[in-house]
Every structure is written in structure tokens, then in C-alpha cells.
């Protein structure tokens, strides 16, 4: 039985895939693999350390403390009338998730060249598993933040959690999507142009300063506000702080802008990733 029609074949390997042949079904079937990756990262990440999972807490605590001293006490930046430590902790925890998603997905190809060179599985499983691994970190840090929030509010600070909290899942999706999108665009490009790898950690640091992490959006002068607002992360950090602490600028248009950015970046990212995954082994 011989036939030349394509429908008789399970796979056809061609030099280039169609741009929109994303094989999402294949990705869905590999969900078990994603779970295993997440679990592997979680189990093995802190295995050789002394303090173990405590690092999840030490990082945001020390960062917020440093910010409180440097930006709060020395530079005396406004914190929208919120307790300084709590203000910085909120920003650090949220920004930390995005920044971790971005930097860790940005070297997916180079860091996994070993495995990718030996066996085929849907490559997108790796960056997606990174989003979930980081979500676990975020959850732990978020609980830390809640503890401090309750402590501050019970000792009489002006902290007003409100119904905006319901937006939290959307904020998470926005951050995960933006981190993944930018991360995989960079990871796809680093297979050819290695310089980008150095740029990404450095760039993520600089990016934090055009995001209202160490200052509130309200303190940004009108002339520069467009610059900060052009950053899709701005509305996410501001909304988060408003939801839990009760101070910040929340506007639907800003959030919608972030959503559109996320969709565009994700789409471009997945398309480029899908193209590069076919031949990156030749250049890595």
C-alpha cells in the first residue's frame, strides 16, 4: 500500500515549518513533562545549599531592607504614605517574579543544549516549566509579604487591602506572559548572537528602574510619566500595591495596554521560538 497523500503519514519533516504550525496539541500532551520539570527544579535547586528554601525568603527581605535604607532613608523617596519596608517588599516580590521568568527563560536554548541535542520533545515545555517553578517561589515570598502586611496593619499602619485583590490572577498571567515572551525572544536570538546573554541580566536591572518598584508612579513628574507608562510592567506593580496596600494608580487603560503588550510579545516570542527550535542545534 503506497500513497503520496500527506494524510497517510504521521509526521512530515520539512526544512521549515509554517509560521503558525505551533504544535500546541503536542505541547498539551507533554503537560506531564512540564510538571516533572517543575518538580525537578524545585527538588534539586536548593539541595546543595545550607539554608535551603530559606533563600526564597532571605532574598526579598534583604533587598527590601537595602531599599528601605538607601531609597527610603538616604534618598527619602516617596512611598505614597505607605510603610517604607512594606512598600519595597511588595515591589520586590512582584518584580522578582517577572525578572526571574525573564532571565531564566532567556537562556533556555544554551542552558539545555545538552538535552535538546539528544532527544526531541516540545521545546516550549522548558520555558513554561520555568514559569511554574518561579510561581512556587513567588507563592512562598507572597506569604512572607502577607505576614508583614498583617503585622504592619495590626500595629496601626495605614494599609488598606481592597477588592482589587481579585485581579491578582490576571496580574500573574500578565507577568508570566511578559516574562515568557521577552525571555524566549531573547533565548531564540542568543543562539546566534551571544552578546544578548550579557545584556539580559544587566537589562533586567535597568528595567527595574523604569518600573515603579523603588518609587510610586504618583511621584514621577508629568514629563517623564509617559516613559514609565510605556513600560507594560508599570501598571502591574502599581495595581498589586494598590490591591494589597491601598495606594497606587490603577487605570483600566493601563492594564489593557499591558494585556495587549503581553499578547503581542508572547505571539512574537512563540513564533520565533518555534522557528529557531528547528535548527538551533547547528549554531549553539
Amino acid at each position, binding site marked *: 500500500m503506497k500513497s503520496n497523500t*500527506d494524510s497517510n503519514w504521521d509526521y512530515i*519533516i520539512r*526544512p521549515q*515549518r509554517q509560521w503558525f504550525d505551533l504544535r500546541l496539541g503536542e505541547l498539551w500532551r507533554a503537560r506531564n513533562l512540564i510538571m516533572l520539570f517543575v518538580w525537578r527544579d524545585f527538588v534539586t535547586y536548593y539541595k546543595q545549599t545550607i539554608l535551603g528554601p530559606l533563600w526564597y525568603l532571605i532574598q526579598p527581605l534583604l533587598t527590601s531592607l537595602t531599599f528601605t535604607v538607601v531609597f527610603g532613608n538616604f534618598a527619602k523617596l516617596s512611598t505614597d504614605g505607605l510603610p517604607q519596608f512594606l512598600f519595597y517588599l511588595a515591589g520586590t516580590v512582584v518584580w522578582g517574579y517577572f525578572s526571574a521568568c525573564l532571565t531564566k527563560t532567556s537562556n533556555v536554548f544554551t542552558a539545555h543544549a545538552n538535552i535538546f*541535542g*539528544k*532527544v526531541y520533545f516540545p521545546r516550549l515545555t522548558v520555558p513554561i516549566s520555568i514559569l511554574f517553578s518561579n510561581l512556587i517561589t513567588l507563592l512562598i515570598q507572597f506569604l512572607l509579604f502577607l505576614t508583614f502586611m498583617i503585622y504592619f496593619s495590626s500595629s496601626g499602619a495605614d494599609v488598606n487591602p481592597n477588592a482589587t485583590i481579585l485581579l491578582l490572577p490576571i496580574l500573574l498571567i500578565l507577568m508570566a506572559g511578559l516574562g515568557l515572551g521577552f525571555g524566549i525572544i531573547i533565548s531564540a536570538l542568543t543562539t546566534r*548572537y551571544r552578546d544578548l546573554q550579557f545584556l539580559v541580566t544587566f537589562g533586567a536591572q535597568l528595567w527595574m528602574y523604569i518600573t515603579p518598584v523603588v518609587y510610586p508612579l504618583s511621584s514621577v513628574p508629568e514629563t517623564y510619566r509617559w516613559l514609565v507608562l510605556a513600560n507594560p510592567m508599570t501598571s502591574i506593580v502599581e495595581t498589586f500595591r494598590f490591591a494589597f496596600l491601598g495606594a497606587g494608580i490603577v487605570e483600566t487603560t493601563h492594564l489593557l495596554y499591558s494585556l495587549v503588550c503581553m499578547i503581542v510579545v508572547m505571539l512574537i516570542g512563540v513564533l520565533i521560538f518555534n522557528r529557531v527550535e528547528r*535548527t538551533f542545534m*547547528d549554531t549553539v
Partner: protein
Amino acid sequence: MSSVIVFDRVSKCYRLGSIGNQTLYQDLNRWWAKFRHKPDPLLKIMDARDSRDGDQFIWALRNINLEIQHGEVVGIIGRNGAGKSTLLKILSQITAPTTGEIKIKGRIASLLEVGTGFHPELTGRENIYLNGALLGMSKEEIQSKFDEIVDFSDVEQFIDTPVKRYSSGMYVRLAFAVAAHIEPDILLVDEVLAVGDAQFQKKCLGKISDVSQKEGRTVLFVSHNMGMITSLCKKAVLLDNGRILSEGNVTDVVARYYNAGISSPYAVDFRRQRKKVGDQYATLLEVHIEDMAGNHIGEVDIRDPFKLKMTYELHGAPVAPRPNFYVISPQGQYVFVTGGGEKGKAINGTYEATCIVPGNLLNNETYSIDAALLYTDGIFHYSFHERGVVMITVIDPIDETIEDTTRYGMSGPLPGVIRPKLSWELRKIA
């Protein structure tokens, strides 16, 4: 029977050299050409020159047309750099072909390496799940096969120990056990069987032939070991320089591999190849065979000694390594292993190791030779082990008038892996 894999004019081109701003410029050029629906300017350059001599591009596969039938076990043979691994990589979707297409019917699993994705910190049990999922098994499949896998690997006692505490033998056994239970329709195997002890190798080979004979699956098997190829496969494909040189009955193709037709089978200069051979400690630069006068040869008179030479570079080896040559018969048996070098500290530099094989030792056959560099002092480690890197054909002039042979007047091929000249004593005792 029906075809399960069809290669249709498949080629693969690799770009060599460093990637820098030149690359960006070339990329922009290509995009611009594509944008205007012009042919790719780089592909044109590649067609214009013979890429083997050009230093920038290499065609690892050229215009491969091949059909594999359901249930066949096909051996893929060829020298280093012939394109065997590239063929498997394209088939297992690790990299895409440059031109052409491949149609596949059924699920493919590839064993290009055992233990891919094994994490040293995880236990044997955990690694079975992770590795199984990486190889494309569903959770249910792994669960139902779990006991069988553990049983096959013989590591039951240590199944909840992190694999970093395993001996290398246990590690390989567990890794192969997972891979052996994937149950794909098409199995691709790349010389992974060269690891592990002899008994386990036998078990693996048994499993592969079971897979093909009892379960009717298709197997593609890449190896340098002609003994294995002949015992496992009915059909073989010989690749040379990216092209199919010969295809068909396994004995014919293997014979072709050992006979003429393959470019320079007795001198390989790795400095001119795309692939770097070696690891962080040492790099193999060259292997060749010379006669006693220093001329490169590929054939030697059965009475004459010859030299096996390898050149390598040491860069940061922990202890002085030992260069080794393995001489292998056409049936895949090791005739002997010989090692040189001395115990002591490693000093960086380029070394040339020479081994003199005496005349009147080998039979008149074509022997395949492996070059290896290994460390036995304190650690056991290979920097490289190039299989079948060169070959030497021993010629028997069959000249009755010559006294000094081991033929002793007999005609026709003489049996035996070797044909040494031994001392004899003959005296009349009654």
C-alpha cells in the same frame, strides 16, 4: 510491506566558523533576498563550491533518498563524519534538514545517548519518570512499565538512592532499561550499546532484536561495530561524505565498507573537520598509518611491520593519559588492545604516539582501528575513543618463491583472526 520512513532528497548543510557581526550581515542579506523572493544568496555560494574543501560550509548530507520498510532492522554505517549522526538527528527532529522532506509513519523514539536528562540529585525512581517523559512516554505508560524497567536494570536495591551514587555500570543499565521500554513503532539507536559490560551489552542486543522480530518494529541502528551490524541487521546503508554509497543486503554493504571506495581510510586529520574530537583535557588531532620509512600507507605486506600514529594535544589533563589503539577484525571482534604512555603528571603540549605492529602477526584481512586516550591512574576516563578511525589492509602477496611468509605453501584464504609467525621445531625422533 509498507514504507514507514521515506527520505525525499534530504540534504543538510552546516555553517562553520565563528559567529560574529559577519553572521548578522549575512542573515540580513538572506532576509532581504527572501523578502524580494530572490533565491537565498548563501545557498548559491554553497552550490558553487565543493563544500568539503570550502572552510565555511559543510554538506553533512547530500540528496539522500531512502525508503525503510515496516519491521526492517537497518544498519547505518560509514566513517566518522560520513553523516550517520546527522541522519539520525534529522529523523529524531533535533535539527531540521536544509532541503528535502522526510515522511514518517508511527511513533519514533531515539536513543542517541543513554541517560539523557538524568539528574544526579534525583533517585533512580524519580529519574525513571523524568527520563521516560522526556523520551515521550505518558505517565500511565511509565507506571505500567515501572516494574519491568527496574527488573531489567538490576538496580532494585538502589532505586531510591540518588543516581549520583550509582556506579557507571548501574547508571547505564538503568538508563538503557528506560529507553528499552518505550515501545515506539520506530526505534533509532546510535551506538549507545558501546557502553556497559559485555553481559549487559548482550542483554541490550537481545532486547533490540526482540523489539524487531517479535514485536515487528522498525529499527535504525548506527554503529561502527560491523560485528554488531551483521548480527542484528538484514539491511544496511553505507554513507560516505554525506551520500549513500551503497544500500541493501548487510553482508554486501559491510564488505563495501571495508573495501575501496571510501575516501582516505588510513589517514584522518581532525584539524580539518567540523567536529572537535576530545574533551576538556585533550583533543585528538590526527591518526594515520605509516610504513617503517615514514610514508602514509593503507595497505601493508603481511611480512612488514607498520606504525599506528596518533597526534593529540593535552590541555589541562589531571594525570598523564595513555594512548590506546584497538585493532578489530572484520567480524567485529577485538584482535587486541594496546596502550602506551607512562604514569605521571600531564604536561600540556602536542604529542605524537607511535605503536609499531610487527610483521607476520595479522592475517590478510582488513582491520578496523580505534584510537583512544584514557586515564587509568586514579581516575578512569576517556578523553576520546574514535571507533573505526582508520583501517589497514594486510596483503598477502601469495608468492610461492618467497620463503619468509606464514603461508607455507598453502593457497586460498587462511582462517584465523591473526596469522602470527611462531617458532617451530621439527625433529625426527624415530
